[in-house]
């Protein structure tokens, strides 16, 4: 697994093999990144089935366009970018990114402290998945993928301000969810 990430020449061999259409090299690349990309997709897609569909479509795109990979960034970033774009396109096609889904009201944020380490990955994931699609997209793109609001606005075809406001609402909803779980207080906690 670490073989290709640490050794550049091996990674180049892998890329060249994929460009040549060698199925064993494509399988190797898939095995290398499939788990991470599955988690990415699960953050965006409402269900596991849809996440798998996005993984499938995303990797087919990766193999179809790998000859365009400029090698100016790690291969994982490039693959992740394609997967994220595929997820956005998938959800857009399913009309899940329309304004009609953004009717989630933000309740008053209750006060308290929480520590994310107290929550399992499944719990965190289900919290993110329970967000409205547009909030989920903005939250994923900003907090985890690291895009800024201007980039997110371009990707989702919304204004920068809309992206900011949607993110703040998503963050508030998520905080309410975290606080409502009644996890015991520990040190190194996040205070609102």
């Amino acid at each position: 697994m670490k073989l290709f990430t640490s050794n550049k020449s091996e990674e180049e061999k892998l890329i060249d093999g994929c460009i040549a259409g060698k199925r064993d090299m494509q399988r190797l690349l898939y095995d290398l990144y499939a788990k991470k990309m599955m988690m990415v997709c699960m953050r965006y897609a409402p269900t596991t089935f849809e996440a798998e569909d996005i993984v499938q479509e995303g990797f087919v795109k990766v193999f179809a366009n790998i000859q365009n990979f400029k090698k100016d960034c790690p291969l994982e970033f490039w693959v992740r970018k394609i997967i994220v774009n595929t997820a956005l396109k998938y959800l857009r096609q399913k009309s899940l990114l329309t304004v009609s889904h953004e009717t989630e009201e933000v309740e008053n944020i209750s006060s308290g402290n929480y520590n994310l380490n107290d929550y399992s990955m499944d719990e965190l994931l289900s919290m993110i998945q329970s967000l409205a699609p547009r909030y989920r997209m903005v939250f994923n793109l900003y907090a985890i993928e690291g895009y800024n609001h201007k980039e997110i606005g371009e990707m989702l075809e919304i204004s920068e301000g809309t992206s900011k406001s949607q993110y703040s609402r998503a963050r508030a909803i998520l905080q309410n969810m975290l606080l409502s779980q009644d996890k015991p207080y520990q040190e190194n906690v996040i205070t609102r």
Partner: protein
Amino acid sequence: MSSPDNKDYGDLEQAMWRRFQDAEAMPDPEVWSRIDHALAMQDNEKYKKRALFYRQLAAACFILFVLSGSALVLHFKQDQEQELLASAEQPQPQTKAPIAGNATINSTPTTEAAQPSGNYTLPKAEEGTIAANAQVPSTNYSYAEPEEEATLFSRNSKASNKSVQNNAGQNYTTVAATTATMATQPGVYSAGQLAATTANNAVPSVTGSQVQGYMPASQAIAVVPDTYTSPTVLNPLLRRNATLGSIAAGGNVPESAVQQKQDELLLALNKPTESETAEKATKNSRWNVGMGVASSYFTQNVDIPEQYLAASDGRPGIMRHTGPIVSVETAENLVNAYKEFEDNTQAANAINVDAKAGFRLNKRFKVLAGLGYSKNTSKTRTSYIVEQFLFNPRNNERSKLKPTTVFLPSLHTFTTDSVSVIKTKEPFNVDYSYQMLSVPLEVQVEGAIGQKWFWYAHGGGAANVIMQSTIKADNPEIADVSYGPGDDSPFRKVQFSGNAGLGLGKRLTDAVSISFGPEYRHFFSSLLASEYANAKQGKPYTIGVNMGINYMLGQAGK
């Protein structure tokens, strides 16, 4: 995408990022199988696309070859026909005889007909005609001397002339069966045998009894079992979904959720993705046809050799020159006429109409080939008329040739006895017109400017066959001169040109677009044929504006 570490994130964002950055989840093992299947389908599609591309390219080359060949054959066949006509000593009238109902064949005597003992040429007839008359008895042949038994039919190498020969006063009219059968069987046939052979050969082609054994397409489709064509079988996603539904039914997942999932998937499957739409558009728009009209200025760039005729005033002691007798005035006028031709010959308008078929090589490039017609004109304003005289020593008379402008007689050395160049009171126009058929082959590159507009640039070559060249003078004394494609013309019969153009286009619909832009055509050789191009010749060219309309095949109704 920038690293979140460098951003002003809150604690929540940083904690989330740390938890999810390297988190992993195992996808279903079937996902790779589906990817593998999709990749295999893509490879197959690529292979098919490539095969289709090469097939279409071959078809385009073949069409171009046929078009070029046809143009050349048409061009040179006329010369050949004229030679044949000239060689015929006494042309005889043609007679037509009705053959077996509705077939009619010209009966044209040829030199091969002069064979003894009544040998007859078997003309080639249309298969359909024979078929329609398959049961015609031998009585359908009209005999001038029906009692004669030795009616012989000989193989004729010129059966394609579709002629029935009349020989020795006999007026036989017959139709051959399929040429392949009759013409390749040297031998002797009686008229009855011929009729029998005709019927025997024609009947199978008419009844089509040998065509039995094939099932019509509608029947073939009807007998395919439904289990082979149901959507669930054909679509792997639906198949998987059906499986999932059955599993869910046995588990705790509610049925309504499974149904919703299926509906969503169906919705997603029925909606074409962007790549599919683009692919479909590329597939459908590889071929296109278009028409263009170009209005241009044509410069013929023809120069005539200046012949200086020495004047002979008949004074004794002066050595007689070998050229025609000219007066001093004529010699001066001739020089002035040459200068006038050089100064006053101007470019005039030209029109070019062409129809092209285009074949898209990729997103930007396409190959265009087709057929074009152009009429290029040029004009001279002159005030000189050339009269030439010939002396016939037999009857001791001088005959006067038709007056001309200075252009034509100057292309070759004056061969007449005397020449007179007269200046008219008023100058008049001389128009030169050249009608050409072109077979262009071009490469066009296109690029989009916005959603509807696009730019284009094209370049290529064309073979131009001059069909008619005319010289018309706006003077009643001077007769018009016109050269057809087979005439002994001073103009080059086939010329090659380089064409280039660029411009803008607009897509009116998915299938129809219009274009507009400047166009330049440069001929690679002089307009005059080599044997007449004694003076230094320029190369003709046209420059103008082209307007075109283009239709993408397979885009109608989209």
